[in-house]
């Protein structure tokens, strides 16, 4: 709750900072400071809330469960990491640097709402607050036609999915006569299979699939991620996506758990399709940035596992997956923005020119591929554990593992380019000692996540 207020105020401060401060560097410095302060506030929120009794806020519109606050803290930490790694690159996108940071603060506000909502209306508002700044960020490179295209496409698709979401909420309200997701449970349980409720669940599922870019509602993802300025793609593909997943999981876990027999097969098929489309299409990409867009679809398939497995492990799964995936992807994008050429060939010979950059990229890619002792392995492990525990979807587990093997193919292509191919990569901006330090810290985080995942998990 404190974090929601803080992030809004910080956002407004950033907006006004742009009016009176013209120096981009000091704006970025201010933003970094504010993100650190925000992390402090989320930790404060976390420590002042008891583990076992969730606090109800605003007439039960929000409910600050311990794991929600934990998720907030971790995601704010990822945002801080993002700003530290890429603050310099954000300055290069365009004129309105302070506005970009302000928008990121507003996105975080949406994230907090989405992790704590206890009411479908708050969920809706959270999704809107999360999405609208992204439409602007996607189009922030105004001179670039692709960026404008990305923005427009994202906006239209986002608006469309929001419409579907609203329709779903309406139908659910018709069935349960309440917006409150915890009260809804009892009402829907007592009802004998109301078709309105089922239709509502389906609509909401489709809308969320849009937001988390699950196939076949993923079409916007590659174009938007590819067209947006790389720095903002990094944020959209990681923190924002994790937030959407958390909201997805929260609703389906809390409200629709008892009805899972009705929707689980639909979602399982969506998951399988997402894994297939994401992984297979990623194989054929020539641009690493576009490959990462498809890989984010593929990773979304794994995150859907957490939603599929309606059990306690799923919470831990989504949290650890969110953080492992976010940290590694932010790391890769931080390396990517340093390069001029985003194709695989652009990475040729990076190991000779910048050994450290190549090494950390390797670790990040290992993490995304799910090699043990990196965060990605523990993340995949947790979501698999959740689904295996659920018990009925062993076929999907095996299918997902085959797809994970495919993912090795395109992740390792980058490694092969960096280490085993000769070339001189063009670096767009010099890699300073500070950059290197931050990359090493990120890399250490990835490994720490893989070795001691319990540090990042909380009692659910």
């Amino acid at each position, binding site marked *: 709750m404190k974090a929601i207020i803080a992030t809004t105020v910080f956002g*407004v401060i950033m*907006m*006004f900072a742009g*009016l009176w401060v013209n120096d981009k560097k000091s704006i970025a410095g201010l933003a970094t400071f504010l993100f650190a302060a925000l992390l402090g506030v989320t930790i404060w929120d976390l420590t002042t809330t008891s583990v076992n009794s969730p606090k109800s806020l605003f007439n039960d519109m929000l409910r600050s469960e311990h794991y929600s606050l934990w998720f907030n803290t971790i995601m704010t930490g990822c945002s801080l990491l993002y700003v530290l790694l890429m603050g310099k690159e954000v300055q290069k996108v365009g004129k309105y640097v302070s506005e970009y940071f302000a928008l990121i603060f507003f996105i975080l506000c949406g994230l907090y709402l989405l992790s704590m909502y206890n009411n479908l209306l708050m969920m809706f508002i959270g999704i809107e607050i999360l999405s609208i700044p992204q439409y602007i960020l996607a189009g922030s490179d105004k001179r670039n036609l692709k960026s404008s295209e990305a923005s427009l496409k994202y906006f239209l698709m986002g608006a469309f999915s929001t419409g579907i979401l609203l329709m779903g909420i309406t139908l659910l309200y018709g069935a349960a006569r309440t917006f409150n997701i915890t009260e809804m449970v009892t009402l829907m349980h007592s009802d004998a299979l109301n*078709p309105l409720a089922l239709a509502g669940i389906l609509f909401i599922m489709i809308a969320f699939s849009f937001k988390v870019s699950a196939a076949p509602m993923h079409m916007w993802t590659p174009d938007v991620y590819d067209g947006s300025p790389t720095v903002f793609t990094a944020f959209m593909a990681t923190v924002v996506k994790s937030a959407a997943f958390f909201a997805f999981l929260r609703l389906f876990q809390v409200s629709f758990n008892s009805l899972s027999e009705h929707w689980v097969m639909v979602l399982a098929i969506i998951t399988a399709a997402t894994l297939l489309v994401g992984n297979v299409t990623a194989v054929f990409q020539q641009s690493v940035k576009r490959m990462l867009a498809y890989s984010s679809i593929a990773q979304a398939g794994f995150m859907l596992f957490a939603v599929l497995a309606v059990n306690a492990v799923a919470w831990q799964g989504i949290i650890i997956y969110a953080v492992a995936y976010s940290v590694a992807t932010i790391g890769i994008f931080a390396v990517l923005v340093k390069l001029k050429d985003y194709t695989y060939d652009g990475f040729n010979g990076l190991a000779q020119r910048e050994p450290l950059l190549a090494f950390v990229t390797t670790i990040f890619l290992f993490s995304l591929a799910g090699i043990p002792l990196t965060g990605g392995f523990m993340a995949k492990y947790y979501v698999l554990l959740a689904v295996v525990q659920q018990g009925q979807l062993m076929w999907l587990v095996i299918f997902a593992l085959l797809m994970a093997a495919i993912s090795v193919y395109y992740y390792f292509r980058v490694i092969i380019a960096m280490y085993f191919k000769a070339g001189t990569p063009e670096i767009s901006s010099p890699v300073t000692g500070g950059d290197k330090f931050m990359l090493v810290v990120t890399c250490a985080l990835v490994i720490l996540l893989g070795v001691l995942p319990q540090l990042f998990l909380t009692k659910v």
Partner: protein
Amino acid sequence: MDVLMLSAEQNTPFNYFPIALQLVIAVGFVVVMMLVSHLLGPKRKTEDKLINFESGIPSVGNARQPMGIKYFLVAILFVLFDVEVIFFYPYAVNFKYLGKEGFLEVVLFVAFFLCGFIYIVKRGALEWED
């Protein structure tokens, strides 16, 4: 007709049968009309028919070029602040009931909007001349 009457008596998914029927007929009508006109209508493609229609004037240049959106911006901002005013009506009705706390909340609400307004003015969104 019996079928439809039957469906109205109980609360079952079958209740929605008339709606589904109407949906099928509505969509079917559109599809059929489009198909029929497509198949039966004569087709004459001339160059004049294929160019973009610009009120009878020959088209000039590329449509993709920057243009002033000042009026659009002002209109959007008007909508925003207009909506703000709408919020005052329910507040005015419940003015007494909400009391001091409600007043403070509205002040906060207005203050945020004021921030936005100051921001807009300072950013120069309302300046008409470049």
